[in-house]
């Protein structure tokens, strides 16, 4: 079972397909869950402390806004941990109340820089595109160690 970083990290479609084909999706929910389940008194209720932007310094320079560094403290370790990545290029939903455009650019850059296998796709908008989309993901995931057929 490989660890596959998904972008956008909140994607239902990617999360489902990666786990369906026998791998572990690394997305926002897992890092948020870790925060939620870690008891602490520093900064309730979300447990985001001033330490988190410091952790983000490993991935973004000090002049980068603290919001980006804070987000990178969640995504950065997952990118380092990932064995592969799947990126949806036209994921407009990853910007706005869902996330930060500069963080998204940095996440995609760091994924490419790691040199792990990356699959880049766009959302399907017809049945035919859906078939190609699922087939491409299945083929990509089956090429990773421990992949299973649907």
């Amino acid at each position, binding site marked *: 079972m490989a660890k596959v970083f998904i972008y956008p990290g909140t994607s239902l479609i990617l999360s489902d397909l990666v786990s369906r084909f026998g791998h572990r999706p690394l997305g926002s929910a897992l890092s948020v869950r870790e925060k939620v389940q870690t008891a602490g008194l520093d900064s309730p*209720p979300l447990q985001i402390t001033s330490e988190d932007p410091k952790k983000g310094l490993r991935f973004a320079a000090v002049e980068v806004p603290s919001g980006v560094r804070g987000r990178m403290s969640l995504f950065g370790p997952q990118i380092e941990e990932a064995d592969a990545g799947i990126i949806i290029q036209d994921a407009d939903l990853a910007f706005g109340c869902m996330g930060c455009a500069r963080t998204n650019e940095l996440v995609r850059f760091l994924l490419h820089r790691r040199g792990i296998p990356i699959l880049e796709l766009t959302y399907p908008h017809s049945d035919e595109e859906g078939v190609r989309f699922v087939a491409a993901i299945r083929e990509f995931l089956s090429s990773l160690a421990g992949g299973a057929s649907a």
Partner: protein
Amino acid sequence: MTGKAGAGGGPARPGVQPGTATKYVFVDSPELTAADLALRGYELAPGVQIKETCFGLMITGPEAEIERLVEELRLLDPDRIFVKDRGFPPGDERRCRANLGGARPGFYGHEHEMRLVRYISSGLRALRDPKKADLLRAKPKHHDEPLSVERLNTIIQES
């Protein structure tokens, strides 16, 4: 902080203890409703907290139990049930819109993707359909791929 207190100093809530997991179960099927899923869920795993929603379920419980429940629920309609992790447990006042007002952050993402899951369902069905073998081998098109120099030369020479 005592062991019984949840993260953030509040009272203990299901889903915030380490080792527990919360998952969304989305259903987009004409033959299956969220209520059907919830009933089946209670039959399969009485110890798991199940919240029925308009789109499906939110299930919270020990991680191994949740994985088992998800596998069983998927069998009801494998191509039209979609599952993803959630960070917060259901009803958590840090995220629940009952406390915050307005749409929950994340709603718009789900709304966007739920319009597209019908195509994913088609793709999953096609994996078992020998007539779609050619389509399965085809690579996804990239609409915004730049025109290659070779292709541009060919167009110029042909015109």
